[in-house]
């Protein structure tokens, strides 16, 4: 019985190809815009989140502004923070600027970063050649340096820099490694920096305090607890002064960014959904016209034994058919639009099953809701009046 109704609906839709297509257009546009908007926003969100994650979602960063009495973090703070649970490593950063000299060539204003072994352990992709800074370097404040890609190109063009000695702020450092070049959008580009052991940096750069600290977490879901514990260590250290330091949680930022983006995609989808409703009204209109045209047919079918439910079912199925076919066309169209946009913008493209089922489900629902009233009207037609209208 259902199959018969579907076949009959199909015949009617095919018979009025142009009209059916125009009716579907509302749904097509609605579904296509929902799919395209959600997919584009999701793709952009994912690729931005991924890029941010690369900078380290598994760490929190402590930045010290200091107080008059204590102008930054010191080694005691580092060792205290290391004792907090859920921490896999602490990597301090000491920043300075200085000129470097090699073989008579000079580069002014090079960013020098004092780091420790943890910095390299946490990200094995940092190092291109050579070896990382190790504990021995830190303990004995070795004068060793790992240099960025641009510096390699500028000072050591065509020469293997490993083992070479360069002058940094008047002292000799041995190059033990080179950094992997980073490209494009990246906040922590290392291309033009020199990394040395932070203990060496404290002594030779004339910096007395550690300005920032990357604290690596074992379990990022416990980040909030760990942040609280770190505060418990730092508050007494800074004598409970306000604004002495900030703790920046990258995971938090990604989370709030993602929730913002999902709000935005919901908003966009909501706007697009309005066009689905408009499309639904179009379907309702077409169904009403179709019922008026087929009054005699409905009367005849009733005379031949069609029950009201049967008539209603047929028209509801016809409305669902229109909207679901429209929904599927919209799905393909929206996918193509989203794919084109993703390719142009350069973000990833993936349509989730939930997006697809949302679109198809929603269009089916539109068919039921807007098909119900006309179908009910058809089922209530008096067969005598209907037959007489010929």
């Amino acid at each position: 019985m259902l199959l018969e109704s579907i076949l009959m609906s199909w015949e009617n839709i095919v018979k009025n190809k142009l009209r059916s297509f125009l009716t579907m257009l509302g749904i097509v546009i609605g579904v296509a815009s929902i799919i395209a908007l959600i997919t584009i926003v999701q793709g952009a969100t994912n690729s931005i989140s991924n890029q941010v994650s690369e900078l380290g979602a598994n760490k929190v960063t402590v930045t010290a502004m200091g107080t008059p009495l204590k102008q930054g973090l010191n080694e005691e703070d580092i060792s205290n923070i290391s004792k907090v649970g859920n921490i896999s490593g602490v990597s301090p950063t000491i920043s300075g600027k200085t000129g470097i000299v090699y073989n008579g060539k000079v580069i002014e204003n090079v960013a020098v970063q004092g780091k420790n072994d943890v910095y390299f352990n946490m990200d094995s992709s940092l190092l291109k050649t050579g070896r990382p800074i190790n504990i021995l370097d830190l303990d004995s404040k070795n004068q060793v340096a790992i240099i960025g890609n641009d510096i390699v190109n500028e000072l050591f063009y065509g020469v293997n820099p490993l083992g070479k000695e360069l002058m940094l702020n008047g002292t000799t450092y041995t190059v033990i490694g080179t950094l992997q070049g980073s490209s494009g959008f990246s906040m922590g580009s290392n291309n033009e920096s020199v990394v040395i052991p932070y203990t060496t940096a404290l002594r030779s750069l004339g910096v007395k305090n550690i300005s920032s600290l990357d604290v690596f977490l074992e379990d990022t879901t416990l980040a909030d607890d760990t942040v609280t514990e770190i505060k418990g260590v730092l508050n007494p250290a800074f004598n409970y002064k306000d604004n002495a330091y900030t703790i920046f949680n990258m995971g938090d930022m990604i989370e709030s960014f993602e929730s913002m983006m999902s709000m935005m995609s919901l908003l966009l989808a909501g706007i697009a959904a309005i066009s689905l409703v408009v499309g639904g009204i179009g379907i309702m209109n077409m169904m009403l016209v179709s019922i008026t045209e087929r009054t005699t047919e409905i009367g005849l079918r009733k005379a031949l034994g069609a029950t009201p439910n049967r008539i209603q079912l047929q028209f509801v199925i016809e409305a669902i058919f229109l909207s679901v076919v429209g929904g599927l066309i919209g799905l393909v169209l929206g996918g193509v639009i989203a794919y084109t946009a993703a390719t142009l913008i350069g973000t990833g493209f993936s349509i989730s099953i939930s997006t697809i089922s949302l679109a198809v489900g929603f269009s089916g629902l539109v068919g039921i809701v807007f098909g119900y009233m006309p179908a009910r009207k058809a089922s209530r037609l008096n067969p005598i009046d209907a037959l007489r209208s010929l």
Partner: protein
Amino acid sequence: MAEVLNMQNIFKSFYMGEEELEVLHDVNLTVNSGEFLSILGPSGSGKSTMMNIIGCLDVPTSGKYLLSGNDINELDEIELGFIRNKEIGFVFQSFQLLPRLSALQNVELPLIYAGLSSSDRKQRAAKILDRVGLSDKTRNLPNQLSGGQQQRVAIARALVTEPTILLADEPTGALDQKTGAQVMELFEELNHDGRTIIMITHDTDIARHAQRVVKILDGNLTEQGV
């Protein structure tokens, strides 16, 4: 002979605003299985209403109508649908074939509502089309058939459910005399095979093909010897 239709004191009124219009007045009618009955009356006599009530498309204002033992007044819309499907085979003046469907598909239509499978429907529809002499036209659309052929498709459609009553409303009204006569011949044959037929007409000559004629005038039914 078994009684298939029994009407007792049927009244039917319509309301035109405030005004009550009585269309059928105290109608009593009994039809036995295998009868060929004509209901003869001019337009406005109430014969269309009579046909609607017999065909269960409408219910009387008062009175009792038994069709194959079913009290029509007690049935709801859905049950009336089933009754029409099972008991009544309609033949309309203007054929009422669906223009998009082939002759075979048109004949299949009532069987869809009877819930038969596609293969059963095709078999039965083809058989009945053969019976009305259209076995070579099963694939034709209505507009590819002559008026007489269309009416025979409509008769096939009415017969395909093996209804208790074949109910024809001016079956020759849209046909020329010759094809009309052929349709009446077919009716006589069908009646000869045992089919109960009720035919509604305003044409005395057509009515004469039936064994029994009742006259309707201003809502009153009177028995008439042939």
